[in-house]
């Protein structure tokens, strides 16, 4: 089931760089010290899954909405439901030069 969701998300990324999806699940990869894609647009209620593909742990932090993931080792993932419309900027708590933004639409 997870694979199908990932595949669907991957296809959506390929079709639209600034994707806008119905509420569901979207994946943000962490590759080579970068959130990929770094900016996404999702509908309120969307679950976003962050998956670390690096050999080094990373941590997702969005202070404005008090989001603090655990440290994600290689292959670990962390999911969060973005239910409030607005822009959420986030960064890696271990490598703060890594930044991303999620635009949550109503």
């Amino acid at each position, binding site marked *: 089931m997870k694979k199908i969701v990932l595949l669907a998300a991957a296809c959506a990324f390929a079709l639209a760089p600034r994707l806008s999806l119905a509420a569901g699940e979207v994946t943000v990869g962490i590759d080579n010290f970068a959130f990929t894609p770094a900016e996404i647009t999702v509908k309120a209620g969307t679950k976003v899954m962050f998956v670390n593909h690096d050999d*080094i742990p990373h941590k997702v932090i969005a202070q404005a909405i008090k989001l603090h993931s655990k*440290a994600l080792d290689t292959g670990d993932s962390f999911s969060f439901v973005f239910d409030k419309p607005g822009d959420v900027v986030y*960064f890696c708590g*271990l490598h*703060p*030069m890594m930044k991303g933004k999620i635009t949550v639409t109503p």
Partner: protein
Amino acid sequence: MKHDDDTSLDRRQALKCAAWAGSGLVWTLNGGVPASRLIGSAEAAATGFSFVQISDSHIGFNKPANPNPNATLAEAIGKIGGLPSKPAFMIHTGDITHLSKPNEFDDADQLIGAARLDVHYVPGEHDVIDENNGAAYLARYGKLSQGKGWYSFDHGGAHFVGLVNVYDLKAGGMGNLGAEQLAWLAGDLKPKSASTPIVVFAHIPLWTVAPEWGWGTQDSAEALKLLARFGSVTVLNGHIHQIAQKVEGNMTFHTARSTAFPQPVPGSAPAPGPQLVPADQLRGFLGLSSVRLAHGKQPLAIVDSTLSG
């Protein structure tokens, strides 16, 4: 070239001397940065004391860049045991573990303990990612420290300061010391005379090596201001898994190699991270630093050695 033989050689003059045999060291100049190596038995004539720095042992890492960091840490400890004169103590500049797990700290303690030296630690960001944000590190190594683990001590007339710059990192920023620690540092340095040699050590470099990779500390200028009045300041860091050096006025900055895996040179790769090198070359990228402090006004001599050398 002016070259006085009296003891008032300042750093600039000392660095101008290509060969400075008095302390048993050969200095070479490479792009304005001094590198030094010991001249065999002449080292025995040097006064003062030495200590060793190891860094970034990443116990728990198991990826292709080094599937067995326990073995390479053990080799580094073995090299320390084979040094011609016994170091007074060891400094570990952080990332002891890869994931702050109790068994990783246990393994590191056992391997490092084989050196039978006092070890002064500062945490890397990998040491404070337990569920309680560094409680595991502090419980183990921070009993005599202040705040999140900073402290100072004196040895042989020099003042050593261990700083912590891996907490409360800000979006888009680099390492962070924070106001509380800077206030403590000001108070700690206040009673020290300007002639006291100062050695500062922390995980992330206290000078900006590569901002695009976060290799620097955003409020380090505040700390360096407090250190500016001292005649000899040596700043030792880790984090970047390679040697980088800079001399600025009376301050010498130096980063040590990792004992686990190398990282790319800034600008040579799209991102930092474990660098895969051929297995038979790995030990040429790993190592330790030995620092000798001679009595007098001479700068500290830092000697880097690799596990293969």
